[in-house]
């Protein structure tokens, strides 16, 4: 029987099948961070058990780290305590640890691929739902809870029923000013925030084939926002080119052997999916969200749908718009914005900073905007400097901060104040996600940049045309 990419990778990691139960599933790579791992180590200690394969786990600090003055002691005692717990646990069990200030430190889903830890055909988990990012390399990658972190530490396995399979095809040519983030927000708006629950998604079609690795990471990252367990894209020359020569990538004969396997990682003709959807690239505009889940997205030039036009409960919809202080039928363009956030595991890579710079170059940050520009890792910072993007940003009135998850989930001091409106390149617009009472509009780095220089929600195409060709 023809197999899908997902079947090939999943089936090769099943240690044992339990009748009327989950599969015992082997994990090749495990990432941990300071927020969801400490309790797992407490569990290990109370059971008196150890870490089975410390070399398969990688620790980095990112969720609650400050993005300013990282060389100083962390001021918040609770955050400092978590960072210390991560460092101590890593040291005690012999786990690699990239703490604050380490040159490999950064957001877990950015430093994993950067260091060649993320490989095609591997299984990757982390106590973070955006672990789906790593699916961009043809890996099966998904978020787990802390009990499962403890399972992976102690046995390198978790117990999971095999998800159903969905394929999402996007074909055609993306329009001017339309980025991978827009493709993902468009798909989620079509699927809704729960449409892919129970499924693992494969993204296929020429839009993804033509996308850079950074773009593929952005798309796979957002798979969880339509409920999917994860998303993946078949590895190709671009994938192999990206990973070759990185710190943890196989070398020499090991590389050749790995390549033989990696080249078998594609969905065979005639393989079956439990669900399949096909979208047309030409239908996708620069996107923006208007509500309190990522499925509530529209083209930036569109107006907010009326309650009777949307699926789902009217009361829930009205509660959401009430929180956002928006009305049905409102236009998004021209809404006054207070904060702009560029960063996160969704859009904190070099390509995102290039896109942002393509608009702000030669312009000035609007006075009413507070902007937080947070690169995803020190390597991203280095590349920004190498390409001179920092000079463009500074000239336009922007300041680069230090790497971390930052305002995406606002566990550190980067909190959007109550009632303020932010255009954010991150992944969630839930109530209070960016700080208690904060209001979030999710969008691409281009929309964020256009808004940052205009002070109001702006269609980036109106600014790009001035500099394009």
């Amino acid at each position, binding site marked *: 029987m023809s197999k899908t990419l997902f079947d090939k990778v999943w089936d090769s990691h099943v240690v044992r099948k339990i009748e009327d139960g989950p599969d015992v599933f082997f994990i090749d790579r495990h990432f941990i961070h300071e927020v969801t791992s400490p309790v797992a180590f407490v569990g290990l200690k109370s059971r008196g058990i150890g870490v089975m*394969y410390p070399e398969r786990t990688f620790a980095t600090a990112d969720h609650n780290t400050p993005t300013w003055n990282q060389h100083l002691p962390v001021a918040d005692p609770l955050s400092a305590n978590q960072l210390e717990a991560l460092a101590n646990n890593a040291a005690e069990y012999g786990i690699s640890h990239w703490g604050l200030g380490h040159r490999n430190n950064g957001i877990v889903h950015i430093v994993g691929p950067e260091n060649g830890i993320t490989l095609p055909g591997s299984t990757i988990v982390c106590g973070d739902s955006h672990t789906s990012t790593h699916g961009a390399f043809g890996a099966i990658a998904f978020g*787990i809870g802390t009990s499962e972190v403890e399972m992976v530490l102690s046995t390198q396995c978790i117990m999971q029923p095999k998800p159903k399979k969905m394929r999402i095809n996007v074909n055609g040519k993306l329009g001017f000013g339309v980025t991978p983030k827009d493709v993902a927000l468009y798909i989620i708006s079509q699927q809704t925030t729960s449409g892919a629950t129970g499924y693992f998604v494969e993204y296929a079609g020429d839009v993804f084939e033509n996308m850079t690795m950074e773009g593929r990471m952005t798309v796979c990252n957002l798979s969880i926002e339509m409920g999917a367990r994860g998303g993946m894209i078949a590895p190709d020359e671009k994938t192999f080119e990206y990973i070759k020569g990185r710190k943890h990538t196989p070398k020499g004969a090991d590389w050749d052997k790995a390549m033989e396997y990696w080249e078998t990682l594609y969905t065979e003709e005639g393989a079956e999916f439990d669900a399949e959807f096909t979208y047309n690239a030409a239908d996708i505009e620069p996107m923006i969200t208007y509500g309190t889940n990522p499925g509530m997205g529209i083209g930036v030039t569109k107006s907010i749908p009326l309650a009777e036009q949307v699926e789902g409960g009217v009361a829930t919809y009205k509660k959401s718009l009430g929180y956002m202080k928006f009305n049905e039928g409102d236009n998004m363009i021209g809404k006054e914005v207070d904060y702009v956030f560029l960063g996160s595991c969704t859009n904190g890579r070099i390509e995102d900073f290039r896109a942002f710079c393509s608009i702000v170059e030669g312009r000035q940050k609007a006075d009413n905007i507070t902007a937080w520009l947070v690169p995803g890792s020190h390597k991203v910072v280095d590349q920004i400097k190498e390409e001179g993007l920092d000079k463009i940003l500074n000239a336009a009135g922007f300041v680069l901060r230090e790497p971390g998850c930052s305002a995406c989930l606002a566990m550190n001091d980067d909190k959007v104040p109550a009632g303020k409106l932010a255009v954010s390149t991150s992944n969630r617009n*839930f109530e209070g996600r960016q700080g208690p009472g904060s209001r979030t509009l999710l969008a691409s780095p281009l929309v964020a940049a256009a808004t940052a220089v205009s002070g109001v929600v702006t269609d980036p195409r109106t600014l790009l045309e001035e500099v394009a060709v």
Partner: protein
Amino acid sequence: MAKSIKNMAYDKFEVLTSTAYPLPIENVDTDQIIPARFLKATERKGFGDNFFRDWRYDSEGNPIPDFPLNDAKYEGSKILVGGKNFGSGSSREHAAWSVYDFGLRCVISSFFADIFRNNCLNIGVLPVQVSPEFAQKLFDAIEADSKTEIKVDLPNQTVTLVSTGESESFDINGYKKGNMLNGFDDIDYLQNMKEEIAAFGETRPF
């Protein structure tokens, strides 16, 4: 299989009959269940205090009296009936811990997000998925009488509205059901197959 020796091991779940908190809102995400700023503990305790923090309290920290979890007429319930797509978003197990720590053992909804459902099962909270019609029936019954009792029978996999006897069956795989009935968790199971895992690990190319 050894009984769990973990500090956080949960009590067995067999049959639970209780009143319920109603929360008829769709797409309740884990950032609402437990906001990120309360994830800074390094031990698993005290999460019940911040369960639905920003929906239970205003910005000055005063309880919002008409929010169901603050409403005295539902106090002591061990079941929460939530709207469709309950628990979406973040993988934080803290959300499931806060459910348990608040005193709940069962969440009923017409649809659950995957990771939240998994996390609940791993720590002894039973997620019960019912049809949208039955969920509505439960909401209506609770609204008509806050003392309405719901009986969740795990051995028979049924959920019953006690006042009328109306009942629906629910799915759970046999393995997880056994764990819940016995208070076991997956780590107990995995610990007992480490040799098999080690042999498998040998075959992995990277």
